[in-house]
């Protein structure tokens, strides 16, 4: 078969365009990271995690710093949430973790409120102060009960 430089060029262009769209989908849309920055694992126990799911974001002041890596039960049958957080952030040991809701669709995430101590959380440490998810059901139930009493 005769080599045809125009055809080879268009085929090469096609492969390049195809690969760049795949790269866009993987890196930008899919959020693939080749060298994820160093992460530390932190734990927190909650009475009620509501609808929190694995891969939910962990945020400080609304900025994403990590994600939930695992959800399970500890020996006291409380919800034990493990999260991967960017290393090198000075999270003081009396920081607190709260489960909050964002958006209309009710995506839940963990919001970290900084404490005042000088010592910082290390890999494998646990949050001392936690705040469970706010349950709308419970709130409504309490409201209905209260209004029933006042009648």
């Amino acid at each position: 078969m005769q080599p045809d430089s125009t055809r080879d060029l268009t085929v090469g262009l096609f492969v390049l365009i195809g690969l760049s769209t795949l790269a866009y989908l993987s890196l930008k849309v899919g959020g693939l990271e080749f060298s994820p920055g160093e992460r530390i694992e932190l734990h927190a126990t909650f009475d009620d995690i509501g609808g929190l799911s694995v891969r939910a974001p962990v945020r400080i002041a609304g900025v994403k710093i990590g994600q939930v890596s695992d959800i399970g039960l500890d020996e006291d049958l409380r919800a034990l949430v493990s999260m991967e957080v960017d290393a090198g952030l000075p999270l003081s040991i009396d920081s607190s973790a709260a489960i909050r809701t964002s958006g209309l669709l009710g995506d839940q995430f963990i919001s970290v409120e900084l404490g005042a101590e000088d010592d910082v959380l290390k890999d494998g440490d646990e949050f001392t102060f936690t705040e469970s998810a706010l349950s709308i059901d419970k709130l409504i139930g309490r409201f209905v009960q209260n209004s029933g009493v006042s009648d």
Partner: protein
Amino acid sequence: MSSLVHDLGARSSSLVGSLGRVSRFGLSLLRALPKRPTRFGFFVHALFDAGVLSMALICLSGFTVGMVLGLQLYTTLTRFGAAEGLGAVVGLSLVRELGPVLTGLLVTGRAGSAITAEIGAMKATEQLDGLRMMAIDPVHFVAMPRALALTVAMPLLNGLFITLAIGGAYVVGVNLQGLDGGVYLSGLENAVRFGDDVGQSLLKSLVFGMLLGLIATYKGHSCAPDSAGVARATTSTVVTASVSILLADYMITALWGV
């Protein structure tokens, strides 16, 4: 009654027989893959036919599908006050299902049928026998480069389709309907994950490409050597490949886990 049982038996054994022949042909394609010479020129030629010539169709279809998705979903989501979810819905439906499946079906019609017709015509004019007479394996010389080209082209065209569809939905959702562009794109990027969604999309398009490559070349090789046979084989490629792609799509989705 006995003729009914007879008929059933004949049908079953012919079905099993054709499945066996397809598998054996697939095996001979795999065996031809590492054989020397590499037939790289033929592969590039086949990639030109299957990939480059499908690009215009894939771009146009992708953009149109994206525009329709943007229009339909924006109107429906607005009714629930959740227009911000447009990016997430568009991204997930495109990356997981619509991209690979529609690309597979379009390439089947655009390139798969042409490959069957080409190989079928070679068979009808006894070119394949001529190759065999010169001790050239027609599977290695004719079928393998084309099947490989379809397998390579499918994921690339899939990426092109999805990217243009995301663009089409952007044009309708953001430029025409007035949704905020940042909301659309961040919703899209937050919802779509590499491991679950993009990986699944790539696997699907790769499997669809292999299926189409196998079916298109097999149907060409096994067609009856006359003009009616080539016509039947071409139709059969489009039907068989489309059904296989849809079935394989369900199986991959079910096995991967939603």
